[in-house]
């Protein structure tokens, strides 16, 4: 009767804790022999408990760490110097099939009637590593997108903004030349000073024009790289960038049909537009109780559209007049160039950027309309019903 003692209640409880624990739990003795290997460990390492109990814990580590581990155990036993006990750290584990994976290991120790024992709690980090890697690559994308555009877009916005008044100046000068000519004829006398000054002014205006021309050549050389793209994917990717590193929770709603006609676009530039509009929207609704940004894609015949709406205060009427003028930000933080750039990009794509200012409890809504790529447009024309379907995704919580 004595040999087959029934487990006590606390032993049974320990057993069930071990078996249901989501983390891997290993107990080993002073000689690094495995005493307990729970269910979670079995799926983490691919061994059955029966295969490893009694074995040296080294079989769960990559070869390269074997010697170190022996050393750690020896040193700890001799000096009490802690490399890991009570601290926890990231190490590598080795599965039965030989594959290596990152894990988080915390080790505690306990004095038991059977001597000193070590308890290791193991958490698989492969999933988290993947997320980290993804995040890092997305972050790199973000930097690339913003940097490429900052330079190119700055250049093209400046060129565009200066080109308008310069065009006017050159036209005024031509009109003035006509006027001077008319006066000379009418009074049949020459106005040499007037003609001379006009000539000088015209030359200077032309000089400004050639500077703008040079900037444009620089920018346009690299500029439009048009690819036939799926606007849904382009928008989703940009949204992922926009939601990165948000401090507060923002509710992001995303609607759109599964199939859209293709668009011939420079994806980096269009993503820049999505980013600009989404950042503005987030900024505008931040102070709402339930900040919500709604991004929708749809098609109207040969036009493919996306809109970014928020539940902020909207845009006051007096602000609307100068909304697209560069360098007039009122947000304080920005340069006030986002919308100017976005509209320039939309227009460069033969599309447009429209604003519904909202107000009276409605937030602003910005819509970008782009012409569908010609061949694709006819193929998918039937699947364009603007039925909201897709997922509501929630941004990172704080």
């Amino acid at each position, binding site marked *: 009767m004595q040999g087959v003692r029934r487990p006590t209640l606390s032993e049974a409880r320990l057993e069930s804790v071990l078996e249901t624990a989501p983390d891997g739990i290993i107990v080993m003795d002073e000689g690094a022999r495995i005493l307990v290997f729970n269910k979670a460990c079995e799926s983490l390492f691919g061994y059955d408990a029966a295969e490893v109990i009694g074995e040296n814990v080294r079989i769960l580590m990559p070869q390269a760490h074997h010697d170190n581990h022996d050393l750690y155990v020896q040193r700890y036993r001799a000096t009490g110097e802690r490399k890991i006990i009570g601290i926890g750290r990231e190490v590598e584990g080795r599965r039965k099939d030989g594959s290596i994976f990152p894990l988080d290991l915390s080790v505690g120790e306990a004095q038991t009637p059977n001597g000193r024992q070590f308890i290791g709690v193991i958490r698989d980090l492969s999933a988290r590593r993947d997320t980290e890697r993804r995040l890092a690559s997305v972050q790199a994308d973000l930097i690339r997108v913003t940097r490429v555009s900052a330079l190119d877009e700055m250049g093209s916005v400046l060129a565009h903004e200066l080109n308008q008044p310069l065009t006017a100046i050159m036209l005024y000068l031509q*009109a003035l030349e006509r006027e001077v000519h008319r006066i000379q004829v009418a009074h049949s006398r020459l106005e040499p000073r007037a003609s001379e000054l006009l000539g000088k002014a015209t030359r200077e205006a032309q000089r400004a024009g050639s500077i703008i021309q040079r900037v444009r050549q620089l920018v346009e050389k690299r500029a439009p790289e048009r690819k036939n793209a799926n606007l849904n994917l382009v928008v989703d990717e940009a949204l992922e960038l926009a939601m990165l590193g948000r401090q507060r929770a923002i509710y992001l709603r995303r609607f759109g049909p599964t199939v859209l006609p293709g668009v011939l676009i420079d994806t980096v530039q269009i993503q820049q537009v999505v980013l600009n509009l989404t950042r503005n929207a987030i900024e505008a609704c931040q102070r709402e109780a339930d900040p919500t940004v709604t991004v929708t894609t749809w098609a109207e015949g040969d036009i493919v559209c996306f809109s970014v709406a928020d539940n902020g205060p909207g845009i006051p009427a007096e602000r609307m007049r100068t909304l697209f003028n560069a360098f007039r930000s009122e947000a304080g933080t920005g340069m006030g160039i986002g919308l100017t750039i976005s509209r320039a990009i939309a227009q460069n794509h033969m599309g447009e950027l429209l604003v519904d200012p909202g107000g009276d409890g409605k937030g602003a809504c910005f819509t970008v309309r782009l012409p569908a790529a010609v061949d694709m447009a006819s193929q998918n024309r039937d699947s364009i019903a603007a039925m909201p379907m897709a997922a509501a995704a929630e941004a990172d919580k704080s």
Partner: protein
Amino acid sequence: MTVHIVEDDYGVRDALSELCRAVGRTVRVYPDGEAFASGANVEPEDTVLVDIGLPGEPGTEVVRRLFRLPLPPTVIVISGLPLADIHHAMRDFSDVIVMRKPLTSELLGLLA
């Protein structure tokens, strides 16, 4: 013989109209495509100057409507876009004249 100018930038619009008047043309101006659609009475011998980058209805639409007329006027498209892009936007229309801003004295030749 009227010149219709559809351009959203005030400076460019006004300067264009001054220049057109200086060469003796009658001028009407419109800040956008909608104003042009509702307010213009276009004769076949008129000239219409259209900016492509208009707010609201794009300039391409304005041009499309003009070419649907039985006897379209002379259409000159002006834009700050690269010439290749303007031509691309106007690929459906063979009779359109395109010019890039800033406009050269070439324009005078067309208006006078």
